[in-house]
């Protein structure tokens, strides 16, 4: 890698000092995607700013009214094993366990992973379903960006170049929230995603409401399909499921990749969603 300065600020003020100079700065979280770009010389920063020492960036706080606050430097392995995640956000827990490898999960941070806007970013799917919000800071302001508004397509996010995610907030979800993540990949560890989907719904009496469908690999970004979600409200029967799946197909724009054609990605997504929806509905029948 070409030479750069490595700075590990202990405060946002200190970080600001480096971001407001006329230097090329890249943010380092887990380095999982950054390192690839540094090695290729796609990026040649003057400064690498390591956010892992910033206050609050490792916070994990859950309250049943307020939901979950996760500092941006919390690693993915915590999502896979953390007790509060397992208990209160099982869809996130399930997805994280299947993500990448232990080596990657132990380094990749939530903030860095969310900021990487790949259409196959698996972390984005449950975050979208849980209505997560990114809290950000830049030298000019702090703001919140719902994950649903974070991805602009083509690997771009709504983040400004000097804007850092400080923490992520997930609202509280009731106990009878059912979620499932399914994917088909070429290799069983998750490499080369053909399509993936996270699906969620909240049980209210004998119906399922607040459906969330987040899809991967079938558009230029991870995204929700509100058109399908609206159709599924209630206790959907086969016909409604069929219409919802159709609505999904009408609202995705899959691309060919060398290992999967776009029409195949559509077919796979359809199969995954059909199974996911049925799986969630089956929770209704059990109790």
């Amino acid at each position, binding site marked *: *890698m*070409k*030479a*750069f*300065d*490595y700075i*590990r600020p202990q405060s946002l003020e200190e970080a600001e000092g480096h971001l407001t100079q006329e230097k090329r700065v890249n943010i*380092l979280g*887990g*380095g*999982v995607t950054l*390192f*690839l770009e*540094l*090695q290729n010389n796609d990026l040649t920063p003057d400064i*690498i700013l*390591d956010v*892992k020492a910033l206050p609050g960036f490792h916070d994990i706080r859950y309250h049943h009214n307020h939901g979950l606050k996760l500092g941006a430097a919390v690693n993915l*392995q915590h999502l896979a094993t953390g007790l509060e995640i397992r208990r209160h956000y099982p869809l996130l827990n399930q997805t994280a*366990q299947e993500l*990448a*490898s*232990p*080596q*990657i999960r*132990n*380094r990749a941070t939530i903030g860095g992973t969310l900021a990487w806007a790949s259409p196959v970013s698996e972390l984005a799917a449950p975050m979208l379903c849980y209505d997560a919000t990114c809290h950000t800071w830049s030298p000019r302001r702090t703001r919140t960006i719902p994950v649903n508004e974070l991805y602009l397509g083509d690997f771009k996010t709504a983040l400004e170049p000097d804007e850092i995610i400080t923490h992520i907030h997930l609202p509280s979800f009731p106990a009878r929230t059912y979620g499932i993540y399914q994917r088909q990949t070429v290799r069983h*560890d998750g490499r080369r995603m053909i399509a993936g989907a996270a699906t969620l719904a909240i049980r209210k009496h004998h119906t399922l409401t607040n459906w969330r469908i987040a899809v991967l690999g079938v558009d230029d970004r991870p995204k929700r399909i509100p058109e399908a979600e609206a159709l599924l409200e209630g206790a959907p029967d086969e016909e409604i499921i069929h219409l919802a799946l159709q609505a999904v197909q009408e609202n995705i724009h899959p691309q060919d990749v060398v290992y999967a054609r776009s029409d195949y990605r559509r077919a796979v997504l359809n199969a995954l969603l059909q199974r996911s929806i049925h799986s969630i509905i089956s929770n209704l029948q059990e109790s």
Partner: protein
Amino acid sequence: MKHEIQFIINGHARSLTVESQQTLLEVLREDLRLTSVKHGCSTGECGACSVLLDGEVVNSCMVLAVEAANTEILTAEGLATDEGLHPLQKSFIDHHGVQCGYCASGMLISAKALLNRTSRPHEEEIREALVGNLCRCGAYADIIKSIQVASRARR
């Protein structure tokens, strides 16, 4: 930019001067001659460079040396003690967990990380723990068996 860093490597405290852009992999291999930590891919795909960093298994090719300041690092060279080989090493020998051997150090480290967490892992748990370690010889079945047997050994 140079950094004076300290860390504990295989139980020994060390001080080093490193450049910002040096990876932990480079520093371990070149400055400390810990060549069990292997170059495999430089993209975090193969796990041949796996080390324990504060007890967690990571790809050292994806960690800057300076990020490892004030941490404890374990490589395969640090597994054996004066009393002899680590049960994992013994088991890999006894149960054919080694063919060409290039992936072996990384496998040991991932296995150590697993056994630190779970004393008697199921086969499925072992498979999951090793998913980031590639073995081109295809020795996974015997590697998994080696780990299972080692997990039952007393130390």
